[in-house]
């Protein structure tokens, strides 16, 4: 085990993948000479040569479409979109080709590519540099959408993303790039679709992913002082979605708050809330609440803290979970064969 930042863990994952698999190539804007704006690809060109990591001109749609072609010829490209919003010029390629190629060819073409995005805010960036764009991709069948919250997960999930036969949209929370954690290197790919219970609790489940996980954990600590015992589930992957872990937790706690940094309306939080009520309706003692970014374009730095769902807002939601009522568990009794 070594202590690495998430940025270093991602860099290490790329290095290990390049070393172990000759088909892995990395490219994007300024990923070579500069090593990427966030230095995720630092030193790859120097250490593995231009063949394995190269700079492209400024042309996102070209970059992603180019990766499609490389996949068709047997490679495993890992491309970088410099920031969340700079991926929009490539949206056509992602949605119309990357996501649909396999289905369109009845499985004849696989696109084992990874599109990496530094995403979300909290670093005093602005519009275009702080977007949470995961819902656009998660809404598109054919894409897997992943967002790590720890260096170890960043390593394992990126390794899995590169090995995965499907195209993966890999969302890296920039606010966590410099957060440190223990990482096993070289390590194993972390299978998709397995949410992690980051903290166990009995009263309420907070569900989060990526940048919102540390917020949920802090809120859970603070809630302890208020007498609530809070469980925190980190989804890790949005698609595939781990219904089992989520439902198991909420059935136990009976209360649920979904925390996402993206805008709330029609976001991933809405999907989580819907799935929870579909599966846990009879265990719920309160409506599933969402805490999210506000439904406005990402604001200038001075008002960023108002936009972001912080600890206070999470606690506020927890406080509103109808604590006066006892959860109605009569259905449980009947499910067990009637009251004893």
């Amino acid at each position, binding site marked *: 085990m070594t202590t690495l930042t998430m940025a270093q863990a991602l860099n290490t994952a790329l290095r290990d993948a390049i070393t172990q698999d000759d088909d892995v190539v990395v490219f994007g*804007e*300024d990923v070579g*000479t*500069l090593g990427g*704006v966030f230095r995720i690809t630092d030193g790859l060109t120097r250490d593995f040569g231009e063949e394995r990591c190269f*700079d492209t*001109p*400024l*042309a*996102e*749609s*070209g970059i992603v479409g180019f990766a499609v072609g490389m996949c068709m010829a047997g490679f495993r490209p890992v491309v970088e979109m410099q920031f969340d*919003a*700079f991926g*929009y*010029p490539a949206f056509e390629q992602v949605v119309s080709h990357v996501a649909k190629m396999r289905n369109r060819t009845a499985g004849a073409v696989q696109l084992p590519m990874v599109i990496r995005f530094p995403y979300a805010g909290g670093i*005093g*960036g*602005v*519009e*275009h*540099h702080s977007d949470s764009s995961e819902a656009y991709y998660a809404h598109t069948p054919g894409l897997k959408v992943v967002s790590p919250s720890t260096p170890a997960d960043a390593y394992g999930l990126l390794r899995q993303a590169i090995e995965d036969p499907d195209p993966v949209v890999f969302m890296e929370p920039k606010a966590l790039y410099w957060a440190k954690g223990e990482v096993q290197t070289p390590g194993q790919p972390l299978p998709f679709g397995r949410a992690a219970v980051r903290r166990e609790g009995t009263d309420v489940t907070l569900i989060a992913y990526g940048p919102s996980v540390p917020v949920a954990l802090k809120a859970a600590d603070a809630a302890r002082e208020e007498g609530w015992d809070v469980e925190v589930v980190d989804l890790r992957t949005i698609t595939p979605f781990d219904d089992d872990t989520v439902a198991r937790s909420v059935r136990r706690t009976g209360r649920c708050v979904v925390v996402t940094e993206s805008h*709330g*309306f029609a976001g991933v939080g809405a999907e989580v809330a819907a799935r929870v009520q579909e599966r846990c309706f009879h265990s719920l003692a309160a409506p599933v*609440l969402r805490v999210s970014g*506000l*439904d*406005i*374009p990402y*604001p*200038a*730095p*001075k*008002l960023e803290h*108002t*936009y972001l769902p*912080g600890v*206070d*807002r999470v606690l*506020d*939601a927890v406080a*509103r979970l109808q604590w006066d009522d006892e959860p109605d568990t009569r259905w449980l009794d009947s499910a067990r064969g009637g009251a004893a």
Partner: protein
Amino acid sequence: MASRTKGKADSGFAPPDLRAEPPATLRDYYRQMTLIRAFELRANEMYRRAKIGGYCHLNLGEEATVVGLMSALEKRDYLFTTYRDHGYALARGLAPGAVMAELFGKSTGVSKGLGGSMHLFDAKARMLGGYGIVGGQIPPATGAAKALTYRGDPGPDAEAVMCLLGDGTTNIGAFHESLNLAAIWHLPIVYVIVNNRLGMGTTVERASAEPELFKRGCSYRMPGERVDGDDPVAVREAARAALTRARTERQPSLLETMSYRLKGHSVVDPATYRSREESQRVRDLDPLPAFRSRLIEAGVLDDDDAKALEEEAEQQVAEAVDFADKSPDPQVKDLFNYAYATDVANASRRLPAEPVFPVADDSTGGAS
């Protein structure tokens, strides 16, 4: 239509004869250049002192280009720029205080602090925005040029559009889509590639198959021309000729100005991809002292005049910083005011600490 380079390529441009210019004009160019220089240096400093947030791209090294282009552009014309837009805003007449306040994110900024450094905008000055997305400005600028054709006939007094873009931006699809549209529809627009030899850390030669970027106009039968971006008069002349073609013939043009970016891509970029020698060479080519010496040589200025202009610029910028610093922050309550023109029924406008669900209205007989 032929593309051409004025003078010799790159650093070997033949400079226009300054004696043909009214001294007051030249003096004013130097004044504007020093104002932009002073503004950008202070913006750099304010960013480092965390007074400015977000991202901040400076026109350092491009002052002569900015002033040359903006002297050719008439008040009635429209301007679209990249995110490297501070100098253009100042030269277009936006108040330095309001521009600095926008950088600071203050409510007295040109867009109440909502746009920030990359999105300076002023409808009155017909500055239709800086754009933070590479290439984002090019199709809108082209559309604006089409709109002008509905409003008036071609002629020397017609309005035109100028659209700025960086060298790296010529590789994005929007550039090619737009040039084609402008050419087939004969639009009154001048595209200007501000070639500072780098797109972030990537050189023109590494990014563009035809590194003489003005030649890309050929594919659209659009006149292309390359000028010395370190010479405001040369830039003005080339831009004026292109604007005249746009006004009188509705013939779009592609102009390329050659200059250097003195510092990193943005304030936070240490530009490690540039060698020490290269950085020194770029500093030696700084257009500001070069233009200053030329003016002194031509007898337009003496050292005292130049110093007076420089001090005046410093003073103006100090006032702008003071204004920005003392201006009020934007208010949380205004956060939802601008996303939509009309109220969107049931849209969440909930701020932190407000109830998740509105309390049931008594008149509806709600429980509790």
